[in-house]
């Protein structure tokens, strides 16, 4: 399975976890309390988020806290770039065709 920001945000529960932890660092139990879902399920989502690099686990005394990785989160906001590149490539190809004056005559329109 792919482990990147897109995998991380593809699931609505994971997106909710991200916004919770973006506000403040939380222990796994505090996160699980917010959801009507088994602790195992939440724990699995947190594990995926950690593997995707969006969360880090810190130990403070006897407690484990999850905190957000702001730099990684930024990639979420930059997710448009690949789409822009796709359209850009497409449109550059179209430019080349539009510039080539012979193409339309050869095409049955």
């Amino acid at each position: 399975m792919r482990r990147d920001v897109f995998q991380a945000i593809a699931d609505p529960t994971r997106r909710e976890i991200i916004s919770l932890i973006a506000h403040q660092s939380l222990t796994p139990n505090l996160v699980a309390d917010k959801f009507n879902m088994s602790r195992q399920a939440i724990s699995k989502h947190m594990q995926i988020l950690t593997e995707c690099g969006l969360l880090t686990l810190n130990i403070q005394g006897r407690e484990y806290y999850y905190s957000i990785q702001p730099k990684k989160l930024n990639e979420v906001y930059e997710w448009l770039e690949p789409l822009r590149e796709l359209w850009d490539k497409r449109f550059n190809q179209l430019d080349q065709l539009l510039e080539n004056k012979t193409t339309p005559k050869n095409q049955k329109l």
Partner: protein
Amino acid sequence: MTTKKRTMVTKDMANKKLFTVREFDAPREKVWEYWTKSSLLDLWWAPKPWKAMTKSMDFREGGLWFYCMAGPEGEQHCARLDYLTIDPGNSFTAQDSFCDEAGNKNADFSDVHWANRFYTTPTGTRVEVEMTFKDEADIAKILEMGFEGGFTMAHGNLDELLAK
């Protein structure tokens, strides 16, 4: 000598919309043809090294463009654009969806609504593509598909064409 134009993409997450805007140095009628005739779409729709191949085209309200994009390693993604409204030369709206090689929609992806508008400018044509998603996760899924397709990898395409 034409300068390379910038493709602008902006988002409106509250309304799950993405806007793409691009200018072309060509008259609106010509740009419109390239967007609506399958023989012309096949020439530019797939980012190289991918190739778009039309399976069927019926450009009218209620009709659809069914095509596949073939990758350099023989991989293939098929999609269909179901046309909703057409205002010839000015705009058209459509539902964009991934499908199998028989044209059946892929249930893992929800449709994306497209509104494409064409405007005459002093230097040519401005094209605006407005995509509306059902869910933000759909945007992520489509981007992921794009990554798999290697759409973002080959940057050299334009240079290659210019060198010819």
